[in-house]
């Protein structure tokens, strides 16, 4: 499916230890999410752009991803200042464009973009199964990791199944519209997907039992931290600590 847009390349970031990438990305994102100044998110965007360049993200796909969130942020930037109170930056007739509201909206936009870029550069650049294994190494409950890996495997299968059913509907001249018939048909489509998925899961369980599944996936890829990873973690921690200090000050 579309899951692997960013992981099929090679760069310095792609070669780093996935565990280190997860920890750094998460620490950085949490710091940005709770920062209340405008300076820290601005630096965050710059750092994230650096990470994006280092990961050699495909520009078009990244832009598309950012465009999605920024549409809504644009609405926020226009309207939040109009409804907020406080001193105005400028006035258009009776409506004032509040400075406070603008800062608020700008902060949200910067934070949102910086975090999204960071996650895209550090996390979306690993394959889904790698992410699952890294989470398992980071001591997430085994069952949750199993669930994650199983789900990743079957999203693809069911996506094809869904596409097939919808093709079949199209062939029979189904044209969706906002009417009761469409809602019923789509309900049946979702129901059919569920029924087939249920049957499939029963077969999977039987097949796995036949092969001696004992409730455990053996992790074959063990990650080893190299010198590069240590440098990456230390450098990122420095950046995060400096930003945290700026935030507190």
């Amino acid at each position, binding site marked *: 499916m579309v899951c692997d847009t960013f992981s099929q390349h090679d760069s310095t970031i792609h070669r780093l230890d996935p565990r280190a990438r997860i920890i750094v990305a998460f620490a950085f994102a949490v710091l940005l999410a709770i920062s209340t100044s405008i300076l820290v998110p601005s630096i965050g965007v710059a750092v994230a752009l650096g990470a994006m360049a280092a990961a050699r993200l495909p520009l078009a796909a990244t832009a598309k991803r950012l465009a999605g969130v920024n549409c809504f942020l644009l609405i926020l930037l226009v309207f*939040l200042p109009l409804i907020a109170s406080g001193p105005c930056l400028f006035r258009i007739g009776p409506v004032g464009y509040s400075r406070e509201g603008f800062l608020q909206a700008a902060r949200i936009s910067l934070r949102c973009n910086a975090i999204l870029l960071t996650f895209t550069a550090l996390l979306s650049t690993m394959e889904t199964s790698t992410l699952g294994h890294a989470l398992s190494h980071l001591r997430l409950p085994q069952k949750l990791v199993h669930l994650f890996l199983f789900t990743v495997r079957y999203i693809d299968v069911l996506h094809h199944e869904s596409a097939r059913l919808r093709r079949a509907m199209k062939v029979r001249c189904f044209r969706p519209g906002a009417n009761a018939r469409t809602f019923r048909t789509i309900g049946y489509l979702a129901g059919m997907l569920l029924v087939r998925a249920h049957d499939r899961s029963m077969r999977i369980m039987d097949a796995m039992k036949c092969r001696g599944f004992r409730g455990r996936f053996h992790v074959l890829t063990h990650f080893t931290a190299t010198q590069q990873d240590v440098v990456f973690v230390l450098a990122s921690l420095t950046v995060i600590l400096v930003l945290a200090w700026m935030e507190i000050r």
Partner: protein
Amino acid sequence: MHIADGYIESASVLAGGALLAAAGVAIGLRKTNYDRLPQVAVLTATFFVASLIRVPVGAASAHLLLVGLVGLILGWAAFPALFVALLLQAVFFGHGGLTTLGVNTLNMALPAVACYYLFRRAFRCNGADESRRSVFRIGFAAGLAGFALAGGMTASVLLISGNGFESFVGVMGIAHLPLLIVEALVTGSVVVFLRRVCPELLAQPGSPRIESSTTHV
């Protein structure tokens, strides 16, 4: 209906959401044995795929959420299931957020679990009244309740994080009303369909067949 990264700046809201979601996921995992894991995973994947189906609403189109249905089918397992689905969405599509993952999981999974407790009895007890209409009504109510609760929780999280979102929340609420009806109608049809084709799917989370299967593989 998920909150993106950066919208909530209150650390206590983020942390509280994460803690409650973690507790829910822990309960859900405890109630799901390894035997049932592939089933929960395949259903999680199905909900993920079904939420990509576009439904026309007037001139625009919307995505299904199916919160009520998730609850009816998975029960407490809705917590880990929705956690995984939201994590995948955030990492691989950039929809939703990762710092808000806890809050989003809670907003979707808690209504699902509520629907499970509210409506599971309706399916077991209405043996006498199996008409299509009454089954549809239960499904409709579950879809309505799930979506409304999820929306209400998302709205309250935005309000208590206090960013001056009050009027936005109002506008978004009104904009979501048509979606609420569509969600309820579609959930109703899904439930009618499942009741006819695969009734064991709906009564499952608490059914003795699954819970008592202690033969550990």
